[in-house]
């Protein structure tokens, strides 16, 4: 891995020098009380110690609402047209490792067999600069799902703070390499050693073992216990970097035109699996909560060899009912 030293003003320079007609910059910024990824913010915050944004950056790769195609009816003829795709590239600056890692995880479901070009185009069109993380609270558990503070999974370039004014910039992918060559050609190579903060995992578990337990315990009182206070919103799924469920609906502009759209959806909604006949395979919140945990820690792993969770803790921080998914998996690991 090639490593360079980069100064904070070189980063500021990069931000101001990227041609605005070709690049959008997405970076954390403070919006009221909470952090968020903000597009073209004039005050991006590049700070390892900042908490994770309230909602992940997946919206920029898998938008909350995305047009699949437009249709138009003229006389009795129907024509379909493709949506226009933004030509601009996206630079994500200071992505948390637990956000960056979600892209290769999501890529599995969006590319097994059929390829979702909407997701792929957006990912291919972006460069992710990850930033080593020095934050932690009761909700996160990235080390339990095979990640860590300095994990470069999903990043093209990775920054590790070196001192107050400098970062070590590691080139992770070919895409990152071309980006550095094009926009940061004059960096000095780094040869020293980096120091990073240790992560205290509050809820260490072995995800391989918990997978086996979940697979063997479809019927278990734990699901009723954890699901009973869940109120069945989709806060957890929508703030989550790895949840990828969606709905497909049509929206008319008038009688003769409209579009088909893909909208975020979530397994916590009662209508998610309800048939037109009224039959519902997941007819209680317990079953729906079981699906959430099982999909993340068993089904996805079974199918794609990855846990559908980066341990970012967002779902927990925002849950109106105080449900902590990490605690549930942690308690499973202690069964």
């Amino acid at each position, binding site marked *: 891995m090639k490593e360079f030293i980069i100064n904070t003003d070189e980063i500021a320079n990069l931000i101001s020098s990227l041609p605005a007609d070709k690049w959008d910059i997405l970076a954390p910024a403070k*919006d*009221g*009380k*909470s952090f968020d990824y903000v597009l073209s913010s004039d005050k991006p915050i590049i700070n390892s110690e900042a908490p994770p944004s*309230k*909602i992940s950056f997946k919206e920029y790769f898998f938008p*909350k*609402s995305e047009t699949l195609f437009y249709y138009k009816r003229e006389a009795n003829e129907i024509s379909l047209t493709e949506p226009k795709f933004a030509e601009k590239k996206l630079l994500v600056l200071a992505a948390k490792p637990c956000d960056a890692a979600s892209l290769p995880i999501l890529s599995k479901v969006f590319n097994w067999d059929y390829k979702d070009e909407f997701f792929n185009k957006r990912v291919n069109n972006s460069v992710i600069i990850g930033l080593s993380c020095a934050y932690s*609270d*009761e909700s996160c558990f990235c080390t339990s799902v095979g990640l860590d503070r300095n994990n470069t999974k999903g990043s093209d370039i990775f920054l590790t703070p070196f001192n107050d004014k400098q970062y070590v910039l590691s080139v992770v992918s070919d895409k990152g390499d071309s980006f550095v060559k094009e926009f940061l050609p004059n960096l000095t190579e780094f040869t020293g050693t980096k120091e990073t903060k240790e992560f205290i995992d*509050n809820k260490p578990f072995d995800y391989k073992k918990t997978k086996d337990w979940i697979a063997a315990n479809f019927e278990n009182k734990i699901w009723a216990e954890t699901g*009973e*206070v869940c*109120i*069945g*919103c*989709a*806060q957890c*799924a*929508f*703030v989550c970097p790895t949840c990828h469920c969606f*709905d497909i*609906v049509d*929206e008319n502009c008038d009688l003769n035109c409209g579009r088909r*759209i893909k*909208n*975020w959806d*979530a397994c916590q*909604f*009662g*209508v998610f699996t309800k048939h037109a006949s009224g039959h519902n395979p997941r007819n209680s*919140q317990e079953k729906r909560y079981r699906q959430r945990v099982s999909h993340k820690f068993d089904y996805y792993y079974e199918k794609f060899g990855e846990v559908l969770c980066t341990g970012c803790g967002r779902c927990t921080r*925002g849950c*109106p*009912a*105080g*449900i*902590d998914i990490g*605690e549930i998996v942690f308690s499973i690991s202690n069964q």
Partner: protein
Amino acid sequence: MPDLIEIAKGLLESKEVSFIIGYTKDRFGRVKPYIAKSVEDANNLMFDHHSIHNLAVYLTRLKIPENGRVGIVAKSCDIKAIIALIQENQIKREQVYIIGMNCSGVVTHSTDEWKKENIQIKCKYCADKAPMLYDAVAGTAEPFEQPDDTQEVLMQKLETMSSAERWDFWAKEFEKCIKCYACRQVCPMCYCEQCLAEKNQPQWITTSPTPAGNFSWNIIKAFHMAGRCVGCHECERACPMGIPLTLLTRKMGMVAGKEFNYRHGMAIDQPTLVGSYNFNDNEDFIK
């Protein structure tokens, strides 16, 4: 005064209630809703200024036996929701055993300190912090410094705006909505078996989280709260996008108060505003 755990134990031991909806602390000290089903469970119950959740929501979410009774730990503002549910015939008075809590104001996040800046605005207006309908009372209310009503400031600002500006303000706020429906799910007054947002024949609400779809959802949700919102602020707390949802419901509540001298959730035998008509009703607001 007997404490919460003692009361709860007694109720569960005598089987007077089948379970108690209350609060507990997890091993990190974070407060969360909890269902106590046994005398041992009762030991886990607690109440403090982090007990922000309005547990009345569970009265319609959980299965309550038709002729059975359940216990609920409720602070003054939650009791309004319980009363409102009784007024709206969603539960019967006999079905709930209310353990009213003397409350010292609540703060939003588990990490928030109990101090002026963090205390909920609703607590400022909570008449005497003492439960108004209960079967038992527990806890002690400590005096606290009243929070500033930043919402009122914002409301006044909105009042002075032109309607176009106001529209822009809301358009910008609603634009953020991701249609997670946390505001609906957490609301004790949203209990419809099938929400209008889930009906597709006809489709009242565009389901997409687009500007148009969000407007229809947020406005319809607010309208359905007219004269029914009990001001618990749970929707706003739950909203991951930080949309100031209670600005709308509070304004409507104020209209109901001013025009009809009505407040929801004040007395179980009072007819609801929406469910009653009075010839003397002021209709000035219909313009």
